[in-house]
C-alpha cells in the first residue's frame, strides 16, 4: 500500500480513463441534482409553482467533474496541477464573494452573476472545498519532497508538544480554574459575558462527559445530545408534574440518562466504527422525534415552559417571594440584583463541570478506564484476557450519558423553557468536535476546544451563518494536520518508578 502510494508510476492512468471516471461522477451528480436542485417549489398567490434552477445544476455537474478530476490527479501523484487549478479557482470565487458583499450594490450585483450558485452559502462551501484541495495538493507536494521519516518526525514533535502542554496542564489547569472562580467578580463580567461563560462551561462539561465515551472507550457516539435531552426533559417533567425541585431531580435526571445510555448500549455492543456512529446518530434522532411527537406528555414542538429555577439551599432568587418563603437577597440582607441568579447559575455549572472532571480523573486511575482503552485498541485481545466487553462498554455509555443528563437538567433550569429544537444533531456534532479537536482523551484539550468553538463564535455572532462553515473548515484542517487532535497525548495510568523514571534511568 505505502509503496504504491509513493510510486505514482504504478498508478498512472491514461487521460481517457480519468475523463471516464470523472464523467461518471458528473453524471451521478447531474441525475441527483436535476430534480433536487433543478426544480424548486415556491409559494405563489394561489398555490405552489415550480421554478427551475438549471444553471445551478450545470454548475454543480461541472464542479463535480472538476473536483473528481482533482481527486484522481492527487491519487496518481500530480498535485502541482491540482494546486495550480484549485488555488486560482478558490481565489476568484473568494474575490467575487467578498466584492459582491462589500462593493457598491450595482457592481456587486454584476459580479455576483459570475458566481456558480445562487446561494451564498453554497458558494462559500465550494470555495472552501477548492481551498481544501489546494491544501491537500500543497501537503502532497511537501510530502513528496520530504521523506516518510520526517513525517513521523513531525508527528513526534507534535506529540512532544502535546506532552509538554499536558505537563503544563498541571499549572495551566489550576490557573484556569482560578480564573473561572474569580471571573464573575471581575469588572468586565457583565451579564452577556457571564452568559457566554455559562454556555462555554456547559459545553466543557458535555465535552468531558463525551470524552469518557469517545476519548477513553473509543466508542464513536453521534447521538450524545439524546442524553442531554433525556436529562433536560427528566428534570422538566418531574418538576412540572410532581412539583419537585432542581436538587431532588438532579440525581434522577442523571439516572434516567444513564439508563438511556444502557438502552442505547445494548443493541450497539457488536458494532464498531462507522456502524456504531450511524446507529448512535439514529438514536439521537429517535429521542428527538419522540419528544416532538409525544404531545400529551412532552407538549411536542410547543416545548415545556415554566420550569422552576434552582434555589440556593431552598432560597429562591426572586425580587419578592410568596408569604413565608425567604429569598436569597433578603436572607443574606443584600439588595436585590437580577445578576445574582446568573452568578449562581455560573457557579452551579462550574461545580458540576468540576465534579465531572474530578470523576474522570479518578476513574482514569481505575482498572475500568484501562479496560476501556484496551477495548478501544483491540477487542479480541481483551476477550482473550477475560475481559467482559459487554459490561465494560455499557459502563462507558452509562457514565457518559449520566453527565449529559446532569448538564441537561442544568440547561432546563437555566433556560426555564425547553423544546426538542434544542437537541438537534448539530449539538451532538459540536460536542463531538470539541472532543476531537481537543485531542481525544485530553481534559484540558476539551477546555481549549470549547473556548475556541463555543466562546469565540459568540463574539462573532453577526457571522452567524458562516460560523458553521468556519467550524467545518477548522475540523478538516485538524484532521489533515493532526488527526489525533490538538493535545492528544496519553500519560501512563500507573508507573513503577513514579513520575521521574527509574533512578538510574535505563532508557
Amino acid at each position, binding site marked *: 500500500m505505502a509503496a504504491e502510494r509513493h510510486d505514482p508510476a504504478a498508478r498512472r492512468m491514461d487521460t481517457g480513463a480519468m475523463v471516464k471516471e470523472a464523467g461518471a461522477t458528473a453524471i451521478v451528480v447531474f441525475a441527483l441534482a436535476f430534480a433536487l436542485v433543478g426544480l424548486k417549489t415556491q409559494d405563489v398567490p394561489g398555490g405552489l409553482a415550480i421554478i427551475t434552477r438549471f444553471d445551478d445544476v450545470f454548475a454543480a455537474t461541472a464542479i463535480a467533474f472538476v473536483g473528481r478530476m482533482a481527486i484522481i490527479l492527487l491519487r496518481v501523484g500530480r498535485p502541482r496541477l491540482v494546486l495550480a487549478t484549485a488555488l486560482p479557482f478558490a481565489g476568484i470565487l473568494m474575490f467575487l464573494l467578498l466584492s459582491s458583499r462589500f462593493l457598491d450594490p450595482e457592481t456587486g450585483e454584476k459580479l455576483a452573476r459570475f458566481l456558480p450558485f445562487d446561494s451564498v452559502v453554497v458558494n462559500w462551501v465550494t470555495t472552501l472545498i477548492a481551498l481544501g484541495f489546494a491544501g491537500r495538493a500543497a501537503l502532497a507536494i511537501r510530502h513528496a519532497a520530504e521523506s516518510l521519516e520526517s513525517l513521523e518526525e513531525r508527528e513526534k514533535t507534535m506529540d512532544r508538544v502535546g506532552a509538554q502542554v499536558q505537563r503544563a496542564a498541571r499549572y495551566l489547569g489550576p490557573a484556569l480554574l482560578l480564573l473561572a472562580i474569580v471571573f464573575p467578580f471581575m469588572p468586565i463580567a457583565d451579564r452577556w459575558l457571564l452568559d457566554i461563560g455559562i454556555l462555554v462551561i456547559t459545553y466543557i462539561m458535555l465535552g468531558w462527559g463525551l470524552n469518557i465515551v469517545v476519548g477513553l472507550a473509543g466508542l464513536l457516539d453521534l447521538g450524545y445530545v439524546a442524553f442531554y435531552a433525556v436529562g433536560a426533559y427528566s428534570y422538566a417533567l418531574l418538576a412540572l408534574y410532581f412539583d419537585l425541585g432542581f436538587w431532588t431531580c438532579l440525581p434522577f435526571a442523571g439516572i434516567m440518562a444513564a439508563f438511556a445510555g444502557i438502552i442505547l448500549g445494548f443493541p450497539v455492543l457488536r458494532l464498531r466504527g462507522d456502524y456504531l456512529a450511524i446507529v448512535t446518530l439514529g438514536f439521537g434522532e429517535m429521542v428527538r422525534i419522540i419528544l416532538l411527537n409525544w404531545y400529551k406528555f412532552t407538549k411536542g414542538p410547543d416545548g415545556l415552559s415554566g420550569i422552576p429555577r434552582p434555589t440556593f439551599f431552598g432560597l429562591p432568587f426572586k425580587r419578592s417571594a410568596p408569604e413565608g418563603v425567604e429569598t436569597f437577597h433578603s436572607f443574606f440582607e443584600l439588595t436585590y440584583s437580577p445578576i445574582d441568579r446568573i452568578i449562581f447559575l455560573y457557579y452551579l455549572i462550574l461545580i458540576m463541570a468540576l465534579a465531572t472532571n474530578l470523576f474522570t480523573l479518578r476513574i482514569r486511575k481505575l*482498572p475500568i478506564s*484501562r*479496560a476501556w*482503552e*484496551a477495548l478501544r*485498541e*483491540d477487542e*479480541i*485481545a*481483551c*476477550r*482473550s*484476557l*477475560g*475481559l*467482559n*466487553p459487554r459490561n465494560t462498554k455499557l459502563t462507558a455509555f452509562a457514565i457518559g450519558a449520566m453527565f449529559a443528563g446532569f448538564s441537561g437538567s442544568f440547561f432546563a433550569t437555566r433556560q426555564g423553557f425547553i423544546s426538542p429544537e434544542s437537541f438537534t444533531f448539530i449539538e451532538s456534532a459540536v460536542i463531538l468536535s470539541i472532543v476531537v479537536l481537543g485531542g481525544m482523551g485530553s481534559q484540558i484539550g476539551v477546555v481549549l476546544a470549547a473556548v475556541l468553538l463555543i466562546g469565540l463564535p459568540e463574539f462573532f455572532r453577526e457571522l452567524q451563518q458562516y460560523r458553521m462553515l468556519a467550524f467545518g473548515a477548522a475540523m478538516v484542517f485538524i484532521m489533515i494536520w493532526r488527526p489525533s487532535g490538538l493535545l492528544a497525548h*496519553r500519560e*501512563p*495510568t*500507573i*508507573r*513503577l*518508578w513514579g513520575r521521574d*523514571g527509574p533512578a538510574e534511568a*535505563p532508557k
Partner: protein
Amino acid sequence: MLSVSGIHTSYGNIEALRGVDVEVAEGEIVTLIGANGAGKSTLLMTICGNPRATDGRITFDGNDITHMNTHEIIRSGIAQAPEGRRIFPRMTVMENLQMGATASDPQYFDEDVEKVFSLFPILKERTEQRGGTLSGGEQQMLAIARAMMSRPRLLLLDEPSLGLAPMVVKRIFEVIKEINKRENVTVFLVEQNAFHALKLANRGYVMINGRIALTGSGRELLANPEVRAAYLEGGH
C-alpha cells in the same frame, strides 16, 4: 485436562474445523503443527469460545466449556497469547500486564509481576515503554507475560516464533519450557516452526485442512517421513 472432541467451526459457510479431536494432559507441552490456513488458530480461538463451535464438545478439567462466554472460560484458568501478539500498542508494558491481570485477584498482582519479570528480565527494563515501540521479540515476550498474568493452568500459544530472529526464537522456546517446568503450566503450542516446537513437545498433532491428520510423541513426529517432507525439509 483439556479435551476437544469432534469440534466443527465455521466462518459463514466456510468450515474451518471439520471434526477435531485433541487431548492435552496436565503438565504436558503439546504442539499442533500445520500449514497456513489449516485451522490452527481457529482451534485455539474456538477453545476460548470465539468463534463458537457449531458442533462437538470441549471440556476443561472435566467441565463443559463449549458454550461458556469467553471471559468465563479465561477465568476458569485458560490463557491465550493470540496470533500476531495483539499487545496494546499505545499502553505501556506495565499497563499491558495489568490488563493481563483483569481476570485474577488483585492481591497477587505484585507477586505475578515479579514472576513474569523473572521469566522475561528485559521487560523489567521497559515497564514504562509503550507496547508498540518494543521490538518484535519483546512484544512476543510481553504477549506471553500478559497471558501469564491471569495465573493460567493451561497456556495456549499461537505461533510465538512468528517473524522473529532465530536467536530470539530460541529464547522464547526456552522460556516456554521454563513456564511449563517451573510454573507448572500446561502448554498447548501452535507452531509452523515445526522443528523447535516438536523438539520441545511431549506430544504433537498435525493438522491438515481442518482435520487432525497425524498424532504421536514429539520424537515420533520429528522422525516421521511425511512430517519431515512437509514441514521440516523446506516444505514451504
